[in-house]
């Protein structure tokens, strides 16, 4: 038979245990956010993805009233971060970023996520810039000249890319099939390595995101073309692949996402905060320094972009036989 005192003591402890976590019970609605928000960033510190996401997260956090803590979880072009994000609670306190690497990865290996089904698209804020560059001493002044030369001389042109799993390689391969070209692919681990190989004359063409920028600006390299949907603002004379008649283009959108099942009011709050953050001058400066176009996409538009990437390249990768189980 329990004594009254002991019973009261146990009741007190029980109440304490119940009351303590009460703070977290209300992580729902009108008061969101009441504690800092984690953003799982799928890239290592210091790159264009890291710096631009940090640049938009800081003002967005200020607007929301709680800081957004960017946590780097690099690995496999954001596949690690995405697989972690998928399993997080959709309470708005953990969000992440989406970029093309994470999308393509699901066709190369067995990941536990599906970029279209497992995430809530919150907002997109820009595109990566991608281009094809040669040394200025090289004989090809336009992309058409390069393509014609490669057609006529199979196996002679060597191009560097950021790896066989990268969109850089995929577009060149797609172009090769379309135009019946046979060129040699030399894969490297990063954009810097790919561009350095061109600088040193070890390859003829470099296909990479913005790493060629300083050399094009200084005249050491020539930007032949870009394979994103619109011309790059700083290089208005460089044609896109669409304009050149090769019906290939990649909109490598960059945006904020969250786990599936987030409540619409929380998504809306995040959406509005990040959208407002896009006007922040620091953020604009960072995007401009990487030459990334600042384009707003709402949740549906971002979803369409990602779906487009999936449709366009998913089948292509499987056709190439690059998938392993």
């Amino acid at each position, binding site marked *: 038979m329990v004594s009254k005192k002991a019973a009261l003591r146990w009741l007190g402890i029980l109440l304490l245990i119940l009351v303590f976590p009460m703070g977290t019970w209300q992580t729902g609605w009108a008061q969101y956010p009441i504690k800092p928000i984690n953003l799982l960033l799928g890239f*290592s*510190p*210091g*790159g*264009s993805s*890291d*710096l631009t996401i*940090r640049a938009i997260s*800081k003002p967005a956090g200020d607007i929301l009233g709680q800081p957004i803590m960017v*946590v*780097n*979880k*690099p*690995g*496999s072009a954001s*596949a*690690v971060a995405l*697989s972690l994000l998928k399993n997080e609670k959709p309470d708005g306190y953990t969000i992440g970023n989406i970029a093309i690497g994470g999308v393509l990865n699901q066709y*190369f*290996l*067995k*990941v536990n996520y599906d970029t279209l089904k497992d995430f809530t698209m919150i907002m997109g804020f820009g595109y990566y810039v991608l281009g094809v560059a040669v040394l200025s001493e090289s004989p090809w002044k336009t992309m058409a000249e390069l393509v014609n030369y490669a057609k006529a001389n199979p*196996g002679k042109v*060597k191009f560097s890319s950021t*790896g*066989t*799993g990268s969109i850089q390689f995929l577009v060149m391969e797609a172009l090769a099939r379309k135009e019946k070209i046979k060129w*040699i*692919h*030399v*894969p*490297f*681990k990063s954009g*810097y*390595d790919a*561009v*350095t*190989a061109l*600088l*040193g*004359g*070890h*390859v003829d063409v470099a296909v990479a995101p913005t790493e060629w*920028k*300083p*050399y094009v*600006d*200084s005249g*050491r390299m020539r930007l032949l073309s870009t394979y994103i949907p619109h011309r790059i603002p700083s290089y208005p004379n460089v044609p896109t692949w669409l304009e050149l008649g090769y019906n290939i283009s990649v909109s490598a959108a960059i945006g904020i996402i969250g786990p599936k099942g987030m409540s619409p009011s929380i998504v809306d709050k995040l959406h509005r905060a990040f959208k407002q953050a896009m006007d922040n001058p*620091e953020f604009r*400066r*960072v995007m401009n*320094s*990487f030459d990334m176009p600042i384009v707003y996409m709402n949740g549906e538009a971002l979803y369409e972009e990602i779906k487009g990437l999936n449709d366009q390249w998913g089948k292509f990768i499987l056709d190439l036989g*690059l998938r*392993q189980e």
Partner: protein
Amino acid sequence: MDVLGNIWVGFQTAFQPMNLLFCFLGVLMGTLVGVLPGLGPVAAMSLLLPTTFHVSPVSAIILLAGIYYGAMYGGSTTSILVNIPGEVASVVTCLDGYQMARQGRAGPALGISALGSFMAGTLSTVGLMFLAPPLAEVALKFGPPEYFSLMTVGLTILSFLASGPMWKALVMAAFGLFLGCVGIDTVTATFRFSFNIIELSDGIGLVPVAMGLFGISEVMLNVEKSMEQSIFETKIKALLPTLKDWADSLWPIARGTVLGFFLGILPGGGAFIASFTSYALEKKLSRHPEKFGTGMIAGVAGPESANNAATGGAFIPLLSLGIPANAVMALLLGAFILHGITPGPMLIQQHPKIFWGPVASMYLGNVMLLVLNLPLIGLWVKILKVPYPILFPLILLFCLIGAYSLNNSVIDVMIMAVFGLIGYFLKKFQYEAAPLVLAFVLGPMMENSLRQSLFMSEGSLLIFFQRPISTALMGTAIVLLVFPLVPWFKKKRFIIPA
């Protein structure tokens, strides 16, 4: 000469109070970060990057650069004291530095390490000032075939690292090569040995492996011993290096500096390869090669100088061409870009202060580091006197935090634990970890370079001999392989390292 005028401008910039403060903060933080195992300069720099938004680009670069070379000073501290490499490049310092600490000679080890680092850092900064643009162009000539040949030389050096039987070293190297295969393959986008653990798809991290193999296993071995026996010789034999230590170290420091500087310029693994190569070189040139691994000061002086000189060299591709030689440089590049400056061939002409300011402040930084580190030696040595039962849980704690901090991932901590266990058994059976680590780093680089080269040559192996630099390096590798056999050819007796 224009350079001298620029140097003057550089020093004027570096001596501005704001920049002096930033330099000091940078090297202080760098030292702390270097001392803490696992936590590397990249983490510290990325944390501080946003705070540099509102200061001038020169100050920002001075701060961040200070963290980098400061970490090189700090990294050797834990290597010597507790056999935990604080930095990847400090792995080699564990080999002899820790043994010196066990013999009560931690003070001289730390002292020579600091002084060697200072001299190497200063000299490499001089090299940076005068030789940056031409050297950068030379670095560009290193394409995949040259890298492959360089790695081949690196692997042949393995044979000089082994103090025990050669076959054991080769087994370790084979194991290291195998471990290096784990991860995504750049050429075919295939995932090798990742067992669907996504975190392994970028390969097994070097830092958790090194921390486990060297540090954790050492803790496990020490804990086995009776608590009455002290791990470290309690009678500390002098805090500062003796004259003899100096005499033994001077040439290794000189050689290490030159070696480190040139190897650091090459993108991809400069400081690490430099320190291993320096160790092997010193062992080869020493009059007592068999004593390496038991506490030879040349084995500390050379590699420590090499890895500090390599930091100076690593700035060259970044500042002259805008190419980052390693992850730290990539972060620095990001910092430049954030401040609206795109480093590249135009940097020195368009923004001379951004080049000469930080370069001049590197001198100051090295001096500050020396002043910071020398008095601290007494403090570090006292730490060794803490009873081991209290010390080792702290060591483990720092290692756990350090391993986790790399990628915010528990997988790295588990890797460290697993390799701690492996390292323990390796030591019990008297296998050496150094060849494993070397092969682990070199293997993937060699494989990538080989395949890239073969792509370039459309399958022909002759490419390695068709280019001047590559031929020279391959020639060196062949000579190094054949050289030990020469006495046998001459039918002379020679001593097999046993």
